[in-house]
């Protein structure tokens, strides 16, 4: 009997692992469902009866497209009321741009993008309520500094001044990745094409650790609907350094 258990110990371990992860898979699914319910609660019951939102996405795709554009323009108009620079992301046209007072001052072509599928299945009223006003960025995380400040002590005399002169010979453009936490618990990631290969291992470790902390406690992992954009590195730096800390953005899916 003892030998049997000893021989079968790996089978038990693998079985236990599968059971553990299987149970967590259920929790994961549930977290997505919870998020969708949470998002669909944004509009009130009257919104579901509003004739403007009575669009069946499958029967009337043209109507849905126009409603999405309407939400985007309304959001941009509200954004234009602010004094600071805002962001406008149009996934339909694959464009991301900086706007100030309704004027597009910079735009960049999105080469690739990924949107969490939960944002595709939100109800029409939810979409309109969520995206017809600028989304506020609660937290910004970047792999580069927002302001590349160089501290310089005043020289005592002209000789020291000549020695301490800082003249750059080229523009330094470090590799940049941005993560913005926005309204509705949506995560906006902006990366450049080369980034994916550079930090693959680091990401894997971070992701594993993140999910394991939930799994070992048998807790539902947090589900963040994510929008991932890939644009050139220089454009990421331009966007990050132009946006204020309390930035807002308009989004069209």
């Amino acid at each position: 009997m003892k030998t049997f258990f000893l021989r079968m110990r790996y089978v038990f371990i693998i079985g236990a692992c599968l059971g553990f992860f299987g149970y967590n898979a259920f929790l994961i699914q549930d977290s997505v469902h919870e998020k969708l319910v949470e998002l669909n609660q944004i509009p009130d019951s009257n919104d579901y009866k509003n004739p403007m939102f009575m669009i069946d996405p499958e029967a009337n795709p043209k109507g849905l497209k126009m409603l999405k554009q309407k939400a985007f323009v309304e959001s941009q108009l509200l954004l234009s009321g602010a004094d600071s620079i805002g962001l406008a992301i149009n996934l339909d046209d694959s464009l991301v741009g900086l706007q100030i007072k309704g004027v597009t001052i910079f735009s960049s072509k999105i080469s690739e993008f990924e949107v969490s599928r939960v944002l595709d299945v939100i109800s029409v009223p939810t979409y309109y309520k969520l995206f017809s006003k600028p989304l506020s960025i609660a937290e910004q995380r970047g792999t580069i500094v927002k302001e590349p400040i160089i501290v310089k002590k005043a020289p005592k005399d002209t000789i020291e001044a000549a020695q301490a002169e800082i003249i750059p010979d080229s523009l330094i453009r470090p590799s940049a990745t941005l993560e913005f936490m926005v309204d509705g618990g949506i995560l906006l990631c902006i990366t450049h094409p080369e980034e994916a290969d550079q930090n693959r291992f680091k990401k894997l470790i971070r992701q594993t650790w993140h999910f394991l902390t939930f799994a070992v406690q048998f807790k539902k992992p947090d589900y963040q609907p994510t929008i991932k954009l890939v644009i050139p590195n220089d454009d990421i730096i331009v966007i990050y350094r132009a946006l204020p800390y309390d930035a807002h953005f308009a989004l069209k899916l």
Partner: protein
Amino acid sequence: MDNKKIKQMDDELIIEVEGTPDQLVHHDSIEVTKAKKSFKWYFFILKSVVLFVAFSILYSYTVPYVQESSVSYLKTEKGEANTDSVKMAKQNKELEKQLKKLESKLETKTPKGPYLTVSTVMNEFSLYKNKKIYRHGRCSTGSYILLEAGDNQKWMFKTPKGEFHIHGKTSNPVWRKPDWAFVEEGLPVPSANHYTRYEYGVLGDYALSLGQGYLLHGTLYKRFLGLPVTHGCIRLNDEDLEVIYKNLDYGSKVYIY
């Protein structure tokens, strides 16, 4: 060792204990078995750890897929929807009307006249005329140097971002050197209207004021165009400066980002 007989048999040390002839204690074998057992345990733990790590990585890869694929099984609240083609056409017509109105409102936000955009990251400018790029080129913007002097005096050399207007236009401008220009050169700061404060020809042929002491002007250091080297002003080469000077009027908008 009186009551023990020790025999050497086949390279194995056997201790025969008196009074218990069938109890043979194999000393070396015990050691080997113990070592083997502990090795087996270490190996088992190691394998378990490797398995767990492998599962964890597999799990973390699987989570996003499970999350995304589970969406397919979720039912969304659609609410009531018009499926009648006549109602849908009416609905679309109304949406189209509202959309046109909103888009034309947004359109009016872009200046009809010439305006300038300046990127402080790329150190480039674009002059727009009739909402199209008329001229594009390099410029120099703030260096982001924070100059610290004694007496808690600090100056930050950065170009401000946002919407600005042309406040004034000057040809053959004269630079009135502020205090930081002397501090930065390690020179004593002269009195407010001392003659050493005035420098001629260093700002190029023209200067356009953006307010708060910030200018669009020319430069003697053309090799630095395209680099962040200024004290906050925007430096341009002579040709670009002339075009901008001639196209931008008082009140023309300048967007710096």
